[in-house]
């Protein structure tokens, strides 16, 4: 072995082991505490390799109805009769079990969805466990959360979640719903059912009463049937703005409560008095974390013109050192694109960007041959009116524009129907607060990006959604208040 390997070659492989747990060959639906078969089935694959991981059930209208009925029964006969403290104890158990099986969940998440193991291990799974812990503590304290208002559960909650943070989104939905006394029917995304199914196994281990949480795998039609079911009292959806609008149309006039967490096109604003090297890390984290499959991704960089060249040069250098590859390798920075469909969408928009005259740049180096991959990409010479600046790409693609002064940055940043998140980089405190006050976004990160915590409310302005998740503010979505 030559002494120069470390200097010239890539890093030695550091694969996470996959031999200490089981992914079953097939999974059924988890309804009323039992595993229920469905007539139709479909496969879930590993987007990095194409390998089939398992075969899961496709819930049709019949099964959706079964699940909602089970949730209703569990609500009326068991869950609504428990004290808050007892509900809390179930949630504590779930949190603990998730901590204990953390590694298994992280590996399965990476295999099913494509995200790097470092992210699923260090971000997704710990945050998911923390969400259960946090909400476990609220279950017997709701009287303090709403001064002057009476609190009661809503009933049965129908929840539809996306493929970008499958386990974390399940935790964000299930934990507060249960803490507030509701029962749940949850449909995970079509391409990432596995961690939700394993969660169901975990609920069994925790002794959660049958029917309190029901997991029904399926595709768009399953979600539609769930949302439209007359016995679902509240709908929670995280996904694209387009589907969010459809859901809102279908609940109009029904009296169903709903919360939506939709798309975004966040502005990440870097001022000339920012700590530049740190800002570059923040930009990279903002758009390449989870391959850019993040609703709150910092997908539009606004860099002050006076430092634009410096920042872009450093950004390109940093992008050259990003490792794109096997999600299960601990060296990997950027994993696989979740599906062929998503890859095509990214490619289409990138093509549009080139055709509209923006200037594309990608780091050197190749991509693995099998699987769905896209290189971290940036576009310079972008204009406000370019498709790549207007539309959410949901991939590792950054568009860059310059600005001259704070007001211009704010105007351009806010000039979008979205309003989920934003970032500000400056060393000057007063400027931070001026910018964060002026940005029309539900989450603003100053000198950091993509930070999440169960105590910190998350959600969007405008077409990025309605409602908040997490924190004190996230509880009201799952309660009926009388005042």
């Amino acid at each position, binding site marked *: 072995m030559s002494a120069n390997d470390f200097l010239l070659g890539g890093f030695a492989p550091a694969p996470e082991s996959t031999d200490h747990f089981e992914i079953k060959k097939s999974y059924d639906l988890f309804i009323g505490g039992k595993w229920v078969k469905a007539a139709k089935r479909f496969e879930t694959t590993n987007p990095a390799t194409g390998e089939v991981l398992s075969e899961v059930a496709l819930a049709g209208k019949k099964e959706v109805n079964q699940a909602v009925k089970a949730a209703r029964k569990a609500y009326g006969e068991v869950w609504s009769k428990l004290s808050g403290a007892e509900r809390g104890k179930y949630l504590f158990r779930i949190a603990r079990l998730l901590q204990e099986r953390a590694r298994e969940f992280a590996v399965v998440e990476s295999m099913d969805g494509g995200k790097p193991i470092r992210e699923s291990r260090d971000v997704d799974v710990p945050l998911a466990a923390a969400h259960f812990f946090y909400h476990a503590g609220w279950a017997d304290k709701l009287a303090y959360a709403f001064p002057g208002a009476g609190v009661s559960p809503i009933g049965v909650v129908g929840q539809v979640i996306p493929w970008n943070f499958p386990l974390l989104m399940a935790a964000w939905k299930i934990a507060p719903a249960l803490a507030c006394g509701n029962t749940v029917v949850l449909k995970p995304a079509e391409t990432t059912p596995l961690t939700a199914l394993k969660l169901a196994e975990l609920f069994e281990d925790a002794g959660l009463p049958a029917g309190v949480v029901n997991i029904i795998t399926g595709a768009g039609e399953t979600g539609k049937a769930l949302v439209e079911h007359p016995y679902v009292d509240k709908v929670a959806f995280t996904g694209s703005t387009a589907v969010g609008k459809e859901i809102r149309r279908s609940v109009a006039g029904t009296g169903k409560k709903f919360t939506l967490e939709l798309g975004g096109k966040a502005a990440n604003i870097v001022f000339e008095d920012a700590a530049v090297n740190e800002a570059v890390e923040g930009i990279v984290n903002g758009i390449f974390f989870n391959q850019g499959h993040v609703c709150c991704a910092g997908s539009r960089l606004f860099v002050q013109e006076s430092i634009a060249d410096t920042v872009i040069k450093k950004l390109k250098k940093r992008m050259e050192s990003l490792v794109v590859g096997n999600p299960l390798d601990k060296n990997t920075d950027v994993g696989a694109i979740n599906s062929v469909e998503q890859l095509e969408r990214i490619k289409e928009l990138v093509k549009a960007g080139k055709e509209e005259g923006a200037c594309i740049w990608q780091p050197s180096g190749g991509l693995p041959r099998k699987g769905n991959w896209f290189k971290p990409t940036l576009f310079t010479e972008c204009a406000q009116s370019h498709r790549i600046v207007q539309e959410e790409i949901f991939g590792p693609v950054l568009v860059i524009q310059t600005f001259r002064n704070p007001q211009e940055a704010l105007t351009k940043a806010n000039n979008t129907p979205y309003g989920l998140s934003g970032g500000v980089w400056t060393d000057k405190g007063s*400027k931070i607060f001026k910018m964060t006050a002026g940005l029309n976004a539900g989450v603003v990160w100053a000198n950091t990006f993509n930070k999440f915590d169960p*105590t910190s409310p998350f959600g969007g302005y405008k077409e990025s959604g309605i409602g908040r998740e997490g924190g004190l503010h996230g509880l009201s979505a799952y309660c009926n208040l009388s005042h």
Partner: protein
Amino acid sequence: MSHLGIPKTYKLFIGGKFPRTESGRILEVRGPTGEFLANASRASRKDFRNAVVAARKASGGWAKSTAYLKGQILYRIAEILDGRSDQFVNELVGQGLPETKARTDVSEAVDLLVHYAGWSDKYQALFSTVNPVASPHFNFSTPEPVGVVGIIAPRRGSLPELVSAIAPALVGGNAVVALAGESALTAISFAEVLATSDVPGGIVNILTGHRDELVPEFAKHMDVNAVLLCSDDADERKIAELEAVENLKRMSLQPDRSLSPSPYHILDFQEIKTTWHPVGV
């Protein structure tokens, strides 16, 4: 062949360790029919002094630890206590308590710990504010732990009484020196639970001893920031209040029984800090 038992030595709990009292004195504990049970340590003012030193040393780290970690640790205490319920029940029954009462006591104590564990990352949301001042400033108020809290637990000293007195100050980020009630053995067994629950040494210190000797010491010490006194005795309260004046200790006077679970007991041992910063370019 029956097993000849090994009676446990009940010492004090200071700085994460179990030292004997430096005074060499004992509290004799006898059962309901006068049979000898154990000699607990009768803490002196020097033991109390040492406990305050240990608490102060540990308090900075505990205050800075994340709310999440504090919640995890309190939940862990509950886990360990729940797992050891039989030990506690036997110890209480041995001292004359009916078994059903002993079981209720232990499960009440466990539930209190779980309850307060859940407050660790929520009381801040209740008790903080962003203040809409009339000048262009970002202005916010947040609670911070006072530091070292002396706790005189309710006199009877049952497990739930002791836990209800300690948990709020603890989950709020304070280091605690507690004078247990008369149920000395239960208090020290509880200290064993603390010692095996990932609680950093010095964060909770437990002394067993005589109230009339030690209450004034708790109230006098210049490096104790606050005191919780569970007492119905008017004289005892007055003495404590007078002694506390010298370093303007915060005093929380509560009745001589279990504290009801409430976030306001956490607030009792918090200071409110308000920060201003200009908004502008």
